[in-house]
C-alpha cells in the first residue's frame, strides 16, 4: 500500500499547487503577498537591518531623510526608520494576534453554537446580536479607556498594545461567530454529515473532520480581513490617545506626528512613513483577501 501513500501526498501537493495556480493568476493577490512578505521580513529583521538601536539618540535632531538616516530623525535624534520597523512589528503583532484570535474564538463559538443548537444556540446568537448592534468604535473606546486600569494588575504588566488587541477581540468576535455559525449550520444539514453520523461518528469527530476543514477557507478570509481591521483600529485608538504610550506602533507614530503638527511643520518624514506603512499593510491584507475570496468563491472569478 506504500504506493498509495506516496500518491496521496503527491495529490495533496497538487491540490495546493492548483490553489496557488489560481492565486497566482490574480495580480492583486500576488502584489499583496509580495508586499506583505516584504513588510513582515522588515519587521522581523528590524533591528538587524538598521545601524541604530530603537531608542538610540544622536546629535542630528529633527533631520530630514538623508545623511545616514533613511527616513530622517525625530526631535530626540532617533532614527525614524528604526522606529518605523519597531512600530511595524507591534502593529503587525496587534493585527496578527487580534485578527486571528478574533476568528479563532469566533469560530469556536460559532461552530459550538451551530452544533449544540436549541437554547444554547439561541442564547449565544442573542449575545452576538447585542454586541453586533453596538457601534464598534465607541464600544472599543469605552473598553480601551479602562485599559490603563487593567494593565496594572498586580506585579505583572500587560502591555497596552496587547490590551488593545484583546479589546478588539472582545468587540469583533461576534462577526466571525455569526458567519461561521451560518456556514456550520448549512454544513450540518449536508448529507455527508448525516452519512458520517450513520457510520457511528461522534460529535467531536464530525466537528474535527467535517465541519472545521470545510469552514477553514472562510476562516482564512476572515482572519485576513480581521487582521487588516485590527491594524486600522489600533491606529484609531492611538490617534484618540488610548494607544500604548510606551511602545511604538504605526498608530502611535501617526498620533505623535500629529501632536507635533508634523504636516504643518513640513516634517513629512514623521508623518508619511507610518501613514504609508499602514496603507501598505492593510492594502496587502485587502489584496490577499480579494484573491482568497476568488478562490473560495469561484463565482467571483473572471471568466
Amino acid at each position: 500500500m506504500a504506493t498509495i501513500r506516496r500518491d496521496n501526498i503527491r495529490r495533496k501537493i497538487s491540490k495546493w499547487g492548483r490553489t496557488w495556480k489560481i492565486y497566482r493568476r490574480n495580480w492583486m493577490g500576488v502584489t499583496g503577498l509580495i508586499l506583505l512578505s516584504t513588510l513582515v521580513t522588515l519587521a522581523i529583521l528590524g533591528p538587524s537591518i538598521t545601524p541604530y538601536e530603537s531608542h538610540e539618540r544622536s546629535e542630528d535632531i529633527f533631520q530630514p531623510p538623508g545623511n545616514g538616516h533613511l527616513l530622517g530623525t525625530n526631535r530626540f535624534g532617533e532614527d525614524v526608520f528604526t522606529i518605523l520597523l519597531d512600530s511595524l512589528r507591534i502593529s503587525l503583532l496587534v493585527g496578527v494576534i487580534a485578527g486571528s484570535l478574533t476568528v479563532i474564538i469566533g469560530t469556536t463559538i460559532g461552530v459550538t453554537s451551530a452544533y449544540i443548537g436549541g437554547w444554547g444556540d439561541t442564547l449565544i446568537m442573542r449575545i452576538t446580536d447585542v454586541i453586533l448592534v453596538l457601534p464598534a468604535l465607541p464600544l472599543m473606546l469605552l473598553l480601551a479607556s479602562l485599559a490603563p486600569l487593567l494593565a496594572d494588575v498586580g506585579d505583572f504588566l500587560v502591555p497596552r498594545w496587547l490590551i488593545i488587541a484583546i479589546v478588539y477581540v472582545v468587540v469583533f468576535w461576534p462577526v466571525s461567530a455569526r458567519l461561521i455559525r451560518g456556514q456550520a449550520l448549512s454544513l450540518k444539514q449536508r448529507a455527508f454529515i448525516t452519512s458520517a453520523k450513520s457510520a457511528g461518528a461522534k460529535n467531536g469527530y464530525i466537528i474535527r473532520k467535517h465541519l472545521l476543514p470545510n469552514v477553514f477557507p472562510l476562516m482564512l478570509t476572515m482572519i485576513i480581513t480581521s487582521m487588516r481591521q485590527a491594524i486600522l483600529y489600533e491606529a484609531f485608538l492611538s490617534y484618540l490617545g488610548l494607544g500604548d504610550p510606551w511602545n511604538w506602533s504605526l498608530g502611535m507614530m501617526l498620533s505623535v506626528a500629529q501632536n507635533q503638527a508634523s504636516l504643518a511643520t513640513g516634517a513629512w518624514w514623521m508623518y508619511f512613513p507610518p501613514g504609508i506603512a499602514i496603507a501598505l499593510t492593510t492594502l496587502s491584507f485587502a489584496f490577499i483577501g480579494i484573491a482568497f475570496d476568488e478562490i473560495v468563491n469561484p463565482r467571483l472569478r473572471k471568466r
Partner: protein
Amino acid sequence: MSKSKVPVIDAIHVTKLFPVMKGIIEGLFKRSEQQYVHAVDDITFTIQEGETFGLVGESGCGKSTTGMLLLQLLNRTSGTILYKGIDVASSFTWPGYISRILNAHFFMPIGYGLSYIFRSKESRELFTEVMNEAIKEARIYKENLNDKEVLDRIKNLRKEIQVIFQNPYDSLSPRFNVMDIVAEPLRLLKVYPSEAEVEARVLHELDSVGLVPPEDFINRFPHELSGGQRQRVGVARAFTVDPKFIVADEPVSMLDVSVRVGILRTMNQLSKERGTAFLFITHDLALARVMCDQIAVMYLGRIVERGPTEEILHNPLHPYTKALIAAVPKPDPDAHRTEDLPIIGEVPSGIDIAPGCRFNPRCIYAIEECSQIDPQLETVKKGYYVACIRYKEINKIKN
C-alpha cells in the same frame, strides 16, 4: 431474492411528531395548544432478511423520516422498532437513567412530602405505591444499562445498518478523497485492526461497485468524479461494513437516466450476494417495480397500502395508489390518458390533518363516513393490507 422468513426490521406503530415552532411573540400573546407535524404516524411494517422493501409516496409524506428513524438518526415519538427482534430504538442511556433516578429519589419524595401536608391518608398510600413503581423502574433501567448484550447490540447497530443518500453531490465530503470517504465507516467502527486491511477492503469494494481500476479512484476528490461515479462511491461506502440492512433514500433520483440502471444493477447484485435487506425509498413507481419485493404506499405519514409489489402495481386497491399509478406517464404515445387524474388538489399540510381518512379531502370516492372514520390497515389477503373503508366497493371486490 432470498425468501427466508427472518425479519430484519420490525416497525410497530412507529410515530414521529415534530413540534411546530412558534415565534416568541405568538408564544407570548397567542394562547394556543402546541401543534405537531405528523411526519410519521403510526406505521407498521416488517422487512425480511435480504428483502427489498419499497416505500413509495409523494414528497413530504414521511418516507425519508421513516428512513431516518430506522437509522436511529431521529428518535421516534412512540412505537417500537425491533432490529432482529431486539428493541434498540429505546436504547438505554445515561441521561434517561439519571432523569429516572431524579424522578424516583427527588421529585417523587417531594410530592410525597407535599401530599403528607395537604392530602388525605389514602392519597399518601397511593403515592407510596407510585413512588415504589418509579424506584423499581429506575432499578430495571439500571440493570439494562449494564446489560452487555444490549450495549453491544447498540454498538454494533451502526455496523449493520447503513445508508445511501439521494444527492451524491451532497453526501460525499468535499474535503475527503475517495479512499477516506469509503474507509470512514470502517475506521470509525474499527472493523479492521490495521490500516492495510482497511485499504484492501476499500479497493475491493470500489472494484465491486464498478469503479475499476480502483487505484485510479482512491485519490480523487468528489468534485473530480461524475454523478454516477459519486453514487457508486456512496454505494461502496454503504457496503464496506457488510451491513445487514441499508436504507436507500431515493438513490438514483438525482442521476441521469443513463447511469441509473448501472447503479441499480450494482445495488441489486451486491444485496443478492451479501443478503442485504433494503429499505428503498422512492417516488418513482417504475423504480419500485424493478427493485422491490414488497412496497408500502405512504400518504401524510400513514401507510395506506402495503403488499407485494406486482400485486399493488397491477391492481391497486386504495384510491391514492390508483391516483399515483395513473400519474405515471406512459412511454406509448398512443396510450392517451382517458380520464383525468383521480385526485383533487395538492398535498395538504401535515399540521392540520383532516379528521377521518387523511386522504378524504382529495379523494374522488369520498363519502360522508370517510371524514368520520379513520381507517386502519385491513388484511385483504395474507401479506396484503389496505387502509380504506370503501376499498371493496370501489374495486368491486366481493367478500
